[in-house]
């Protein structure tokens, strides 16, 4: 399938020139096209932020909800209509900060959704405050002497918390990112892709160059089925590993749900029978 099918034609995109989000928009379209997922069968759920504007820039069904709240509607949409491909996509502040509790518990349900986090280590739309993944010492108008909180490690926490697919990508390598996104979307169950994205305007610390210099791919021999090994690698921060850290097969929220025990027709197609 040609990724043009997702193109909006000439529109005004609100992102800064050079923003990593353009690359992500491309990679997402590419991955979906290669997987032959048509816009009509796709729903992208986002919160609020620069990252969360992504669905506005491609042809798809979308639910651009509240800041921090992309995952609950995504979970509900998937179980209401399992025939849809559901992607929750937003920023690091949105999903790990405001939405942290949903992030934590959604993976326990293991709905078959893909969560893509534009991790630019900053709050972009609100003009540059620290995000949960901001590095210690990162200076901002609010963290005037630099961040004193330990950065949140989404990879380690997700693995420890039993997520069934955990990966990290960096948009500094689009083809590599497309490959990872495809695996994530194809994975049956909750999949997380923490996606490094340079914010050229508010994050002068974690730039394209920084991400290039501070990342590398897990070697081909790496086995993503060993949880402890995955955790070891997730703690590496001198250079951040990219790739799929951890995968496990597990029944999904939809498969386990009582509503689908007797009848498999999607919820939205059913009629109540009051007898």
């Amino acid at each position, binding site marked *: 399938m040609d990724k043009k099918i997702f193109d909006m034609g000439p529109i005004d995109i609100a992102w800064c020139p050079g923003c990593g989000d353009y690359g992500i928009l491309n990679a997402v379209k590419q991955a979906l096209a290669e997987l032959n997922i048509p816009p*009509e069968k796709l729903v992208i759920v986002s919160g609020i932020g620069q990252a969360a504007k992504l669905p506005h820039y491609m042809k798809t*069904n979308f639910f651009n909800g*509240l800041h921090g709240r992309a995952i609950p509607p995504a979970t*509900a949409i998937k179980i209401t*209509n399992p025939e849809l491909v559901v992607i929750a996509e937003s920023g690091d502040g949105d999903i790990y900060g405001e939405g942290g*509790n949903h992030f934590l518990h959604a993976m326990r349900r293991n709905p078959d959704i893909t969560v893509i986090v534009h991790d630019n280590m900053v709050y972009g739309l609100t003009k540059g405050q620290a995000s949960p993944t901001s590095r210690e010492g990162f200076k901002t108008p609010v963290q005037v002497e630099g961040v004193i909180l330990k950065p949140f490690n989404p990879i380690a926490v997700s693995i420890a918390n039993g997520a069934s697919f955990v990966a990290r990508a960096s948009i500094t390598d689009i083809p590599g990112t497309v490959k990872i996104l495809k695996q994530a979307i194809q994975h049956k169950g909750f999949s997380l892709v923490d996606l490094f994205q340079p914010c050229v305007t508010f994050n002068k610390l974690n730039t394209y160059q920084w991400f290039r210099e501070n990342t590398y791919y897990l070697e081909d021999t790496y086995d993503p089925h060993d949880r402890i090994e995955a955790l070891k690698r997730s703690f590496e921060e001198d250079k951040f590993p990219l790739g799929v850290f951890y995968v496990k097969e597990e029944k999904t929220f939809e498969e386990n*749900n009582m509503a*689908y025990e007797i009848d498999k027709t999607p919820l939205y197609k*059913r009629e*109540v029978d009051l007898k």
Partner: protein
Amino acid sequence: MELKDDVSIVLCGEAGQGIQTVERFLTRVLKFDGFNVFAAKEYMSRVRGGFNSTEIRVSSNRVKSFVDRIDILVTLKKGSIEHLKKRVSNDTLILGEKANVDDGYDFVEMPFTQIATEIGDKIFSNIVAVGSISAMLNVEFDTIEEFLKAFFAKKGQDIVDKNVRAAKKGYDLGLELVKDGKIKVEVKKDKTVKDDLIFDGATAIGMGAIAGGCNFISSYPMTPSTGVLTFLSEHAKEFGIVAEQAEDEISAVNMAIGAWFAGARAMVTTAGGGFALMVEGMSLAGMIESPLVVNLGQRPAPATGLPTRTEQGDLLFALYSGHGEFPKILLAPGTLEDAFYLTQKAFYFADKFQVPVIILSDQYLIDSYYNVKNLDLPKSAPQKFVVETTKDYKRYALTQDGISPRGIPGGEGLVDVDSDEHDESGHITEDLELRVKMVDKRLKKFDAIKAEIIPPELIGSQKYDTIVVGWGSTYGPIREAIEKIGDNHTAFLYFKQVYPLHPDTKKYLQSAKKKIIVENNATAQFAHLIKSETGMDFDVKILKYNGMPFSTEEIISRLREGR
């Protein structure tokens, strides 16, 4: 003592002692035997200990109200009489075991436990009690036996037998009291009542939801609203309902909105504190024009307040919930029948007008039950307002009445919704003229909504000079009070939809010399709402906010005192 036509039996003991069991058995046995029954409970926020009580009214006519009067008090724990002292009078017949009766009160010894232990286990004492009380009310023993057999069938013959024996012993005990003339009860039976339904408010709302096509509920447990989640969970498999306990109320409301987006019919059930966490979601529903049904089971606040008590303190909070300006609908059932019909209606309103609908219930309504002469279930599946989408589909197409045909993803067209201000296709916009169009569009829906407002019910004299206004769960006591007062110049105006307010409201009030509002809160919130809409004041405000519902007697006396 002699009791005629209307008997109030109260059981009091501590949490975990099985009062609930006695209540469940007794009310059902009584109904099966042809008695009209009403039951309401009052309990502490604890799982064991303390003092809980249940009132069971048995009556020749249908009753739907809590009364203070206690004709028969069964005390299961010392301290019970003290706990209920305001309601216990010299006419109250006290039954119990010496050890469980406060000192200094005449009472009739009822060796429930002793009998139970003879049969084999203290736990049977509840059944013994059921038997005794049934006898006093001259219930046929067969009815009890039949009921127990059915109820314990799965548990095996031995259990059945023991329970029946326990009931019989208790029954005989009760008969003695009657023989000894200690008590004489005359309440008319009505064979047809046998086939009535009997359920509580939580069930009424749950059934109403199913009748309204609800197939998704995401909620977080919170007294007194949890019963609705439990009811729908129990029926999840048979009716194909996704019943999800969310990690918090924020997730619950955002899941429900997401579910509607994909084509489900969703609701949430919560109490004030949980609803507080959902108000951002209310605003989201308002902006993306999503249907949403919320059961807001009110309880005394602020904050945690009195978790297991009742209050009508969240009306204005619910009315203005959510930042910004958008339409919503507030319903307030005053009877179990209305709890059923209004919940069903809530789904219709939500789906048709694409707005959030809040059902303002409360602990009193949710926890009380009585026999209902069957509900008319919808003949057909509920009307749905979802349209098939075509390639050129626009979710927010500007229309005459402000309502844009609502499609769901999966069809030909793309369905895009956005919490930012958006254009017709659902895409974010900063076009300030479009902003105005969209605000007008959303607010215009009020006109359509107003065309279908459920009118208030006028009860009592049509040529009134005194009007008593109430909303929601105060219906029972107010109605009974008005009937008991029975003069020809007082009427009761019962609002089951509190917002938008029915246009006749002003007319109704203007034709009264004296206007009285009755509310189960401290600040007369509905009076405030009525004034903000009509400019009219009430002469008398009868308010109660100690966590208990109004009783019939209290309304009568306060109407007389006029305070």
